[in-house]
C-alpha cells in the first residue's frame, strides 16, 4: 500500500523541484555574474577623462561623496535604451553620475553624446578595458553605486529603468545618505 505510493512521491518531489527552479529563475538571472566587490573598496584607478585625455581622474579624486559609475559605450545597443532614462531621471538620483566609457573610440563616444545628450557630470574613458576588468565588468551597460568612503555598495547589470531607480537605487542612496549623516 505505502510502497505503491513511493514512485508517486518521488515523481511529485521531482515535479516540485522543477517548479521551484522555474519560479526561482523568474526572479534570478542565471547569466548575471555576482559581483565580489560589494562591500569592498572600489578598485584603484587612474583614467583620462573623455573630454581631455591629459586630465586624469583617480578613485581618490571621486571619494568624499557617493556616485553612480555607469559603464557605457557607443557600440553598446542596450545603452541607447538606458540613455533616455539617465537623461530624464539622472538628476533625480541626487548623486554624481560618472560615465565610464568602456572600450570605445573617444571620437565615437563624443559623437554618441552629441547625438543623444550627455547625462554625466564627468566621463572617464577606459579604452584598453583594464580598469573594467578590475571592476569585474562583463559588458555594458552596468552600474556601480559607490559610497563616500569609496566602498562599492551595489552593482546593477543591464539597462537602468525608472523602476530600477525607484526600487533598487533610491532606497540604497537614501540609506547611504543617512549613513553619512551619523
Amino acid at each position, binding site marked *: 500500500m505505502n*510502497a*505503491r505510493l*513511493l514512485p508517486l512521491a518521488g515523481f511529485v518531489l521531482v515535479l516540485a523541484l522543477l517548479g521551484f527552479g522555474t519560479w526561482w529563475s523568474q526572479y534570478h538571472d542565471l*547569466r548575471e*555574474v*555576482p*559581483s*565580489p*566587490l560589494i562591500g569592498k573598496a572600489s578598485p584603484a584607478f587612474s583614467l583620462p577623462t573623455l573630454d581631455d585625455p591629459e586630465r586624469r581622474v583617480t578613485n581618490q579624486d571621486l571619494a568624499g561623496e557617493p556616485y553612480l559609475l555607469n559603464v557605457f559605450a557607443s557600440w553598446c545597443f542596450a545603452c541607447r535604451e538606458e540613455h533616455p532614462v539617465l537623461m530624464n531621471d539622472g538628476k533625480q538620483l541626487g548623486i554624481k553620475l560618472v560615465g565610464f566609457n568602456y*572600450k570605445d573610440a573617444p571620437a565615437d563616444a563624443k559623437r554618441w553624446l552629441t547625438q543623444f545628450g550627455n547625462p554625466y557630470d564627468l566621463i572617464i574613458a577606459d579604452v*584598453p*578595458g*583594464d580598469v573594467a*576588468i*578590475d*571592476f*569585474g*565588468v*562583463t*559588458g555594458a551597460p552596468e552600474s556601480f553605486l559607490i559610497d563616500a568612503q569609496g566602498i562599492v555598495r551595489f552593482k546593477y547589470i543591464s539597462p537602468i529603468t525608472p523602476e530600477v531607480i525607484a526600487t533598487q537605487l533610491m532606497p540604497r542612496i537614501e540609506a547611504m545618505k543617512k549613513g553619512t549623516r551619523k
Partner: protein
Amino acid sequence: MIAFPVRNPHHAGSFAPERVRRKPAYALMLLVMLAIASVSAPVFAIDPLPFKDRTEELRFQALAKQLRCLQCQNESLADSNAPLAADLRRDVFAQMQAGKSDAEIKQWLTARYSDFVLYDPPLHGGTWLLWFGPLLLLLAGTGAVIVTVRRRAAAGAKPRTTMASTAGDSEDDW
C-alpha cells in the same frame, strides 16, 4: 590581390541572380571564394600569443579551458572570440609570464568575477550540496534498496510484493 569582382565572401548573397545562372562564372566564383576563405581563415583564429615554448602554450590552453568567458557564457576563455575574452586571455598570459601559478591567476579572476568565472566550482559552504548531493542521492538509493530487500527477505515465502510485480509487468509491456 585578386582582380575579380568578389570583394567579400560574406556578401556572396548579394550577387545578382542572372549571374548565378551562368554556370561557368558561378564555378569560377566559387573557386575564388574558396581561395579567399582558405587565405583569410587564419585571421579569424584566436589572437596569437608569444609563448616561449610548447609547455607554456599547453599550460595556458589547459587553464583557459577551465575559465568561463563572461560575455558569452557558454564558451570557455580558450574558445571565445568576445573582446572581453581576448582581454582576459592577454591578462592571464601576462600573469603567467610574471611567474604566477594557476591558483594565483584563478584567485585574481575570482576576486573580480566571483566563482562564476570557474567552470569547476570550488568546494565551500555554498557548494557542498552541489559536490555531495549526488553522493547523498546514491546513499539514499542504496538505503532504499537495502530496506526493500530486507523487507522482502523477512516476508519470506511470499513470492512477490506488489511493487516488484508491477515493475516486472511494466518492463514486459515495454
